[in-house]
């Protein structure tokens, strides 16, 4: 079942990190491996507003900044509520709170939000999530404010400076989730410098950028004096300054956090997990274990089949593979039970996603080769068969050689000889996203853009999302009218709990076809410096929430 955000034993209240009430002040150091190359709200592809960016950009809605499952809720940010839909959820209306200001003291208006969304359509500022383009009326052909001759996008209506209305092509009950994305951050048109905007984006959040060196490699943030904490219930903003250093090796980041010497005592990382070796090293060290937080993110690693390729056109073969899989080996390859939870369902085991348990092709802990052999015989392969498993060579412990060899080993016991085809990561992605040329049997993964079953199941199983010439995620190219219809029906629901139930049922139903073999859901372990307090890790992103931590 869902777990809380913390399992540390060190702190008195059970939360990871230092004990004691959090206080304002001090400098928080962030040690990251990836630099913040994109710092333009239009270009960021984030789940729920990102981490460092969410300190600078406020959006219409935002994620609830709480530990664990509570963190999967959408809450208002700039808006007074999470949005008011019309009857069929094709129109969403938001009203801004009072007293909202930019870092220069000027007021935030809904026109700025509209402009911010519009510029995210510009080819010069590509990179953001696809939803607005797909959902907004006219979005598919809009090319952004630099080419529209000042007309703007008609489906975003701004009746006054406080109100904004979005008109959608079809019902979208989960629009409030999308409104958390940075494209919904206000951008004052007068300050827009196009591609250069990211050098100094105008802050609407508690911090402003005072230094951005080497394209986001070294960022210095200081308090935005015009941010009013009364308008923002989510961001705590305890530290006075935030110093982001990136481009670091992940082993070094974890080592620095472990050592916690000097400024590293007040340091966190927002993009680096503990690896298996580091977990093994922490071992019985109580002090260190007390500084480790655990996070979950809606993510599935699975084996994908392309039923157009023999022998995977035979459901029995796919079922045989499902029965043969040894999830213990796979989990170990992914870093062990602390870093991966074995999965038999496509949806993660979180309520927000609508999780419904099932195990259609039970493999037990270590696989059921006997059952697999039996199915193979039925399928016409009494002497076993030889197949090729395509995987990437990226060192990600997800689609990587480690996992592939674990699969290879398990299937060998069932008489399936697996030849490995390791591709460089780009080549791998091109292959698996190419609808015309998808391999028959490969490792894949999927993460949801917000905690719900929709962004999980729709891209993978909706027949209308099969794309040729673009990125196709419906690997099995399933185009089942019943599934398509059910997806549309659920999308109309604005009652997320009710929607969740139906997503779970849909998952279970699709699972019967054995189009995928769910392998595991990753778990994230995050280490913080020894002076860091108030560590919050929500199940939305699984990442430590930078807006909550204190260093005093």
């Amino acid at each position, binding site marked *: 079942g869902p777990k809380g955000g913390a399992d540390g034993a060190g702190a008195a209240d059970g939360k990871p990190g230092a004990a004691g009430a959090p206080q304002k002040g001090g400098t928080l150091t962030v040690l990251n491996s990836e630099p913040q190359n994109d710092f333009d709200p239009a270009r960021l592809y984030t789940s729920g507003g990102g981490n460092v960016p969410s300190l600078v950009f406020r959006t219409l809605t935002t994620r609830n900044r709480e530990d664990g499952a509570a963190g999967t809720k959408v809450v208002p940010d700039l808006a007074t509520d999470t949005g008011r839909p019309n009857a069929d959820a094709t129109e969403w209306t938001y009203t801004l709170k009072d007293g909202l200001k930019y870092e220069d003291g000027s007021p935030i208006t809904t026109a700025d939000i509209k402009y911010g969304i519009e510029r995210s359509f510009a080819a010069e500022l590509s*990179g*953001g999530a696809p939803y607005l383009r797909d959902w907004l009326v006219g979005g*598919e052909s809009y*090319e952004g404010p630099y080419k529209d001759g000042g007309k703007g996008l008609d489906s975003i209506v701004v009746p006054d400076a406080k109100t904004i209305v979005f008109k959608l092509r079809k019902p979208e009950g989960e629009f409030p989730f999308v409104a958390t994305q940075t494209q919904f951050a206000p951008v004052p048109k007068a300050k827009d410098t196009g591609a250069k905007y990211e050098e100094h984006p105008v802050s609407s959040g508690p911090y402003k950028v005072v230094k951005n060196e080497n394209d986001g490699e070294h960022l210095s943030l200081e308090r935005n004096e015009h941010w009013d904490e009364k308008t923002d219930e989510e961001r705590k903003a305890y530290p006075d300054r935030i110093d982001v250093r990136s481009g670091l090796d992940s082993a*070094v980041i974890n080592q620095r956090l*472990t*050592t916690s010497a000097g400024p590293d005592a007040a340091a966190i990382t927002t993009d680096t997990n503990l690896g298996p070796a580091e977990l093994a090293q922490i071992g019985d060290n109580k002090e260190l274990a007390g500084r480790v937080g655990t996070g979950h993110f809606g993510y599935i690693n699975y084996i994908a089949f392309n039923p157009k390729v023999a022998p995977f056109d035979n459901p029995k073969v796919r079922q045989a593979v499902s029965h043969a899989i040894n999830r213990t080996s796979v989990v170990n390859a992914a870093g062990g039970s602390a870093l991966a939870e074995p999965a038999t369902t496509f949806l993660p085991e979180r309520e927000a996603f609508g999780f419904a348990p099932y195990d259609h092709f039970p493999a037990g802990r270590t696989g059921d080769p006997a059952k697999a052999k039996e199915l193979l015989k039925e399928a016409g392969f009494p002497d076993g068969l030889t197949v090729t498993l395509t995987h990437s060579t990226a060192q990600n412990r997800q689609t990587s050689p480690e996992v592939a060899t674990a699969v290879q080993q398990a299937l060998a016991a069932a008489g399936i000889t697996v030849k490995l085809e390791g591709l460089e990561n780009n080549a791998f992605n091109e292959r698996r996203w190419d609808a015309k040329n998808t391999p028959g049997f490969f490792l894949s993964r999927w993460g949801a853009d917000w905690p719900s079953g929709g962004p999980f199941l729709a891209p993978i199983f909706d027949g209308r999302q099969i*794309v040729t010439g*673009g990125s196709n995620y419906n690997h099995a190219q399933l185009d089942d009218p019943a599934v398509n219809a059910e997806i549309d029906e659920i999308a109309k629901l604005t009652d997320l709990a009710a929607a969740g139930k139906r997503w779970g049922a849909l998952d279970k139903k699709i699972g019967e076809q054995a189009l995928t073999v769910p392998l595991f859901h990753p778990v994230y372990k995050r280490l913080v410096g020894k002076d860091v307090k108030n560590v919050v890790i929500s199940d939305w992103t699984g990442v430590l929430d930078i807006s909550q931590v204190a260093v005093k």
Partner: protein
Amino acid sequence: MTRFVLKRTGGALLVLLALSVIVYSLFYLAPGDPARLACGERCNPQQIAQVREQLGLNESSVAQYLHFLQGLVAGRDHSAGAGLVLHCDAPCLGLSYQTDQQVTELILTRLPATLSLALGALAIWLLVGVGTGLLSALRRGGITERLLTVLTLAGTGTPVFILGLLLLMAVCAYLQWLPFPTYVPLTEDPEQWAWNLLLPWLTLGLFESAKYARLTRSSTLETLAEDHIRTFRAYGVGERALVTRHAVRGAVAPVIALSAVDFGTMIGGAVLTESLFGIPGLGKTLIDAVRVVDLPVVVGVVLAIGTAVVVAGAVADLLYAAADRRVALA
């Protein structure tokens, strides 16, 4: 000298041209669609098409290359949105597909870090490598030499990522003699610059020094067998002076030649060290760019490396000619 410079400049242009052509052609072989990578994972086909157009990837490969050359000579304009047209002055290497940064600018901001690293490492391997090489030539056959052999080989035999990590662990985590290195530009604080680069320098320098130690030793022994050494021995010149004053000069040629090569490749190749110590250098930039098929950055960095290789080669030739006057500058 002027002739030499002119000739080398001509040669350098040739090298750079060849490099850019090679990288451009390889790029067409490499997997990965830059437009898709720049656009983001979930771009739809129309968006990708827009980005492709924006990046100029619709043109034929030859046209793209010619544009690149045009940019080098005359500069180029790029639309940056918001009615803004960015002018990229010659020599313009284009804009990064991924970050829209001017590549020339990008290289200029990354170069100091890389140079800092490479120069320090050079100093260390010359000092440690040539030093131990000489010492072991002097003590040949003795226990000191065997010890030095094993020590320097341990440096080479340990992959640089393990050597660096071990140093970090020992010095920063375990002994806590130094804070974990963070790159500080020389212009900002020379003292901090040096302290923070100390470990990276040691890592790279020690890794390379075994090569130089062996090379120095063998060339020194070679020279020790020559007749002029006999002259000085017959005048009572001690063994140490024979090695350090006379025999070492025989080792100069290969050491200089190799240092030039290593220094040149280090400009683009010290990736592991750079990422281990978080040095914002060219090597890391290149690797990242290659991974996302960011062609302008790849070409730019490769050209920067090429320039470094050519310059280092020319300097080596000059040094070498100065050290051994029998060699004329070609």
